[in-house]
């Protein structure tokens, strides 16, 4: 890849790490759109525990991996909730990037044999891809 692409990638990852590592602590903790819809018919207390009524949410069961080391966006054993949430976010971004970029890299189209999908791709993209291939080879 060209230097500009590396810079974009690094910049984007930095933004994602900041969002997941720091800003995530200021996220709203209210039930989300799906949960609130499923709570219709029930009354909840200040901690969003169901106190009475009947609603779909009552059928919810525990997650298979509810005791996992990163379950519920916290790191097991870290007491400080700010650090716990932030650290789990940072790990999540890195793991997602590793799986995503790694997986897509393995799936990518190799060689310069054009396929019918290339019809929609303009030449600049092809040029860049060719340059980057040459770059990796050297």
């Amino acid at each position, binding site marked *: *890849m060209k230097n500009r*692409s590396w810079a*974009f*990638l690094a910049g*984007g*990852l930095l*933004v*994602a*790490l900041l*969002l*997941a590592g720091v800003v*995530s602590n200021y*996220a*709203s*903790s*209210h*039930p*989300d*759109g*799906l*949960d*609130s819809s499923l709570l*219709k018919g029930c009354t909840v207390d200040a901690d969003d525990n169901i106190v009475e009524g*009947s609603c*779909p949410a009552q*059928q*919810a*069961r525990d*997650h298979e991996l*509810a005791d*996992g080391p*990163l*379950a519920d*966006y916290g790191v097991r054993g870290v007491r400080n909730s700010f650090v716990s949430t932030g650290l789990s*976010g940072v790990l*999540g971004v890195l*793991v*997602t*990037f590793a*799986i*995503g*970029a*790694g*997986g*897509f*890299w393995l*799936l*990518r*189209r190799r060689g310069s044999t054009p*396929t019918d*999908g*290339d019809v*929609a791709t*303009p*030449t*600049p*993209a092809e040029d860049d*891809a060719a340059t*980057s*291939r040459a770059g990796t080879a050297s």
Partner: protein
Amino acid sequence: MQTLAMHISNGIIDGPVAAIFAALALAALTVCVLRGRRDLDDRLAPMAGLVAAFIFAVQMLNFPIFTAGVSGHLLGGALAAMLVGPWVGALCVAVVLVVQALIFGDGGVAMLGLNITNMALLGTAAAYALIALLLRVLPRTRAGLAVTAFVAAMLSVVVASQGFVLQYWLGGTTDLGGNLAGLAGTMAGVHLLIGIGEGLITATTVLTVAKVRPDLVYALRSLRAPAAPLVPVAGGVR
């Protein structure tokens, strides 16, 4: 109640229906892999990884909506479709959902097929259909791009929410007493409001990328290519 993130929890939809949707999602993702490979070159592959990582990060940021006591967060299908195309985009959202279910205990593992169907497949497909339509009819300006991103993102969230209603109709574990329309209405209303947030985040992100690296916006490359060769020069987006 623990914080959940707009993902279906275990027990909400019954086992057989969850299994059917798991098979359906797997088949659809296979098609995405086959078609997505055509788009994936040395440059797009790492960028798609970045899109997945970015969606994971932003999904942690629940924002309040106008209704008191309810929050929402980005689903990301429209953002992914805009930046890396519909096939790879759906795979990006699916990667996020798999990581969330298997590592963060968010969205039941048994419910993964349902969640992937709604958010990765339905959301992304609806978004891309709208993007393809709007980019053709709207003026080729930054405003046109912003409106495309906003509208596609907002409506894709509502479509995804109705996917859940369909699944609940097929295998919901609580008898709604025939009031499925009530659930559909509640879900649509709440998700229209969440969709405004989704639209703002998607439009902001797409505009930022289009300003820095217009060549990295898939929708601009593939949907506008014949008329305007997109060399990253000043004003290339216009």
